[in-house]
């Protein structure tokens, strides 16, 4: 039987190429719900497949791929089938109308006109929506609300509009929304799909920003929309016999591997990552299409004829940027997935080893009954250099461990790499090691006398802060206790800089104890800015205050630049925390002051004769910290009482 002229012969290289492109496309689709298909049509055309067959075969691989992806993500509870179907049906109408417009433009202006229309649609839609999504992702990443998504103002308005007879409940929104909003959104999604082959660039941001679904739900629900649109498109093209089933099934073979992996990836990342990947791809695709616009303008005679080399170069660069868009998206997903899986496995391994890195025979079972990881104080890592500066650290660590029934691990870090230590000479190294060992032995004896389970170790590391953070992670420490600054000099250094870096990098809370500080439970001050970091800090401080029976003052500092709305929100946050603490049986009061936050927090602590200041941490490091500063660090420099920097999980 002869193969129809529409269909090309396939060789092994073609198959491998399609499998690879399919895999990467599937990976991106599984993660952001869409966006993997746009490169497939040009990829097939570059092999010599006629345009219409490429579009038809792309459609025919898209709907089973989207179905498998939607089923996978539905297992994770991320899919709103009803919203997907409602959007999908209206998207189908949008596809038909979009195709009709395309045909009219092609009839009137030819291929160049049609291409110019597609490119302009790309640039306008991706330029506006893509840059907004990317900006929002970056803002979320920077802001204090990482991990939490707020419903956009537009979505709140859409959800508040009640039009009788049109209201439908959607589980992804948790409320009823008029279908008069979802239908145009679906229609626009379909129109875009018919124009640039990726409706999801409107569908996902639409569901998120206009309807108010979370980005995770939006990207998963888009797979249902893609299934409906893909099935409709396939039926239409199959009726004309344009589907090359071989191409579709080969791409499907690769893309199903990818879509499963992309779907798994969504369970490991924070919501802003989905927006980030989508935004990056959209902006890069926009660049790809913008590059080629002069070629179409020249074809239409709007600008002068281009040099053939320039024309060919622009087309090639445009295609390379298109491929790069997908590759960059896939690389970000891979990286996020890899890190997420590694971290998760590490957590699981630590969870099944009794006592983590601490030897079981040295451990007394903790008495702490708390369930929350935020407020749990069962394992402390104490960094001591044996100097007068860390004397307070050890004293307070033992005191707290006694109160909380925690076990402690005390380390003394010998700083420097092997070369540095070698140049010190064997005798000096031995002296340092011996001195560190003696210091730790003395601490172990103190701990034994206090009835605290303790183990000690001298460790060598190039970077002190990295070693402390690694040790804390390994033992799943609930708290790192260290001094504010240590003595400089040969090796057993514990600098103020190291303290700041530990605060910036630690995955658990850090208690910084200045030399003269004593935490006797006189009074605690909790500083809050209304963010979830402050809530975490309050919960942790509440647990501690309850254990010690200590009264607490919750303080919020306002600067003159803060708006009235900000102040009101801060007041609500403080009152919420105060009520929470009171419900927990802690004597708590609130205080609002105006001025510089670090100075005012210390002033309140001094006035109350507080022995502990509790602050939430954003965990910023490096340039971000230099630019944004850290209230916790500035407070540390001003106060003589201990500071607990609580890290959000």
């Amino acid at each position, binding site marked *: *039987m*002869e*193969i*129809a002229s*529409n*269909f090309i012969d396939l060789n092994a290289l073609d198959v491998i190429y399609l499998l690879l492109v399919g895999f990467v496309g599937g990976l991106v689709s599984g993660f952001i719900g869409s966006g993997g298909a746009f490169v497939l049509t040009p990829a097939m055309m570059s092999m010599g497949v006629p345009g219409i067959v490429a579009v038809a075969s792309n459609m*025919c*691989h898209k*709907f*089973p*791929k989207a*179905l*498998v992806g939607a*089923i*996978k993500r539905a*297992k*994770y509870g991320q899919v709103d089938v009803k919203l997907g179907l409602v959007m999908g049906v209206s998207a189908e109408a949008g596809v038909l109308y979009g195709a009709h417009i395309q045909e009219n433009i092609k009839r009137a202006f030819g291929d160049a006109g049609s291409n110019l229309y597609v490119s302009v649609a790309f640039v306008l839609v991706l330029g506006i929506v893509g840059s907004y999504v990317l900006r929002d992702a970056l803002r979320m990443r920077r802001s204090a609300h990482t991990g939490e998504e707020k419903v956009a103002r537009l979505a709140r308005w859409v959800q508040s509009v009640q039009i009788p007879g049109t209201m439908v409940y959607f589980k992804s929104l948790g409320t009823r929304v008029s279908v008069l909003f979802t239908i145009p959104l679906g229609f626009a999604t379909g129109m875009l799909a018919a124009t640039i082959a990726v409706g999801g660039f409107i569908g996902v941001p639409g569901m998120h920003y206009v309807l108010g679904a979370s980005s995770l739900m939006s990207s998963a629900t888009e797979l249902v929309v893609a299934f409906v649109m893909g*099935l409709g498109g*396939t*039926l239409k093209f*199959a*009726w*004309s*016999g*344009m*589907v*090359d*089933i*071989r191409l*579709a*099934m080969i791409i*499907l*073979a690769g893309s*199903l*591997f990818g879509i*499963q*992996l992309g*779907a*798994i990836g969504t*369970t*490991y990342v924070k919501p802003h990552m989905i927006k980030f990947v989508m935004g990056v791809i959209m902006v890069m695709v926009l660049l790809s299409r913008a590059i080629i616009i002069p070629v179409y303008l020249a074809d239409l005679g709007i600008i002068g004829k281009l040099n053939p080399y320039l024309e060919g170069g622009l087309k090639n660069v445009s295609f390379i940027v298109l491929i790069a868009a997908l590759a960059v998206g896939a690389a970000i997903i891979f990286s996020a*997935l890899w890190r*997420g*899986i590694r971290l*998760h496995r590490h957590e699981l391994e630590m969870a*099944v080893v009794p006592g983590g890195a601490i030897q079981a025979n040295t451990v007394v079972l903790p008495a702490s009954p708390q369930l929350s990881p935020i407020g749990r104080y069962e394992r402390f890592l104490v960094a001591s250099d044996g100097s007068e500066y860390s004397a307070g650290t050890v004293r307070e660590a033992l005191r707290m461990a006694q109160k909380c029934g925690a076990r402690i691990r005390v380390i003394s870090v010998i700083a420097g790499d092997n070369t540095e230590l070698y140049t010190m000479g064997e005798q000096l190294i031995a002296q340092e090691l011996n001195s560190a060992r003696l210091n730790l032995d003395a601490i172990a004896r103190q701990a034994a006398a206090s009835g605290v389970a303790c183990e000690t170790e001298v460790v060598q590391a190039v970077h002190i802060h990295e070693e402390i953070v690694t040790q804390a992670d390994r033992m799943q420490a609930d708290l790192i206790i260290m001094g504010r600054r240590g003595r400089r000099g040969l090796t057993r250094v514990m600098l103020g800089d190291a303290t700041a870096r530990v605060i910036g990098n630690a995955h658990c809370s850090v208690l910084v104890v200045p030399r003269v500080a004593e935490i006797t439970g006189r009074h605690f001050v909790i500083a809050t800015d209304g963010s979830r970091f402050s809530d975490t800090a309050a919960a942790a401080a509440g647990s501690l205050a309850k254990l010690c029976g200590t009264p607490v003052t919750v303080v919020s500092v306002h600067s003159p630049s803060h708006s009235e709305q900000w102040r009101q929100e801060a007041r609500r946050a403080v009152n919420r925390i105060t009520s929470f603490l009171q419900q927990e049986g802690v004597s708590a009061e609130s205080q609002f002051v105006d001025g510089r936050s670090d100075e005012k927090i210390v002033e309140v602590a001094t006035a109350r004769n507080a022995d502990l200041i509790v602050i939430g941490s954003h965990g910023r490091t490096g340039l971000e910290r230099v630019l944004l500063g850290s209230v916790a660090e500035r407070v540390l420099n001003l106060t003589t009482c201990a500071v607990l920097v609580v890290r959000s999980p």
Partner: protein
Amino acid sequence: MVNNITAHKGPQVTRMLAYGVLSLSFYFLLYLFEDEILAFSSRGRWFFAAPVIIAFVFSFAHGNFTSYFWDTLRIEAKK
């Protein structure tokens, strides 16, 4: 824990292999009868159902295979 993992992995590998063989068979048939299948599925009109049915059948076998494939490699969703 180890026993649980082993007990869980056994049927998982079997299922992966079963769906893998099924999927491979479908692709082998597609390769073997390439011309006939292509001609049949591209006749158009009421034969439009052919590519749709083929796509559903392939996605069932291959979708299950790929799912078990990643599970077997311990690349699973975070619970």
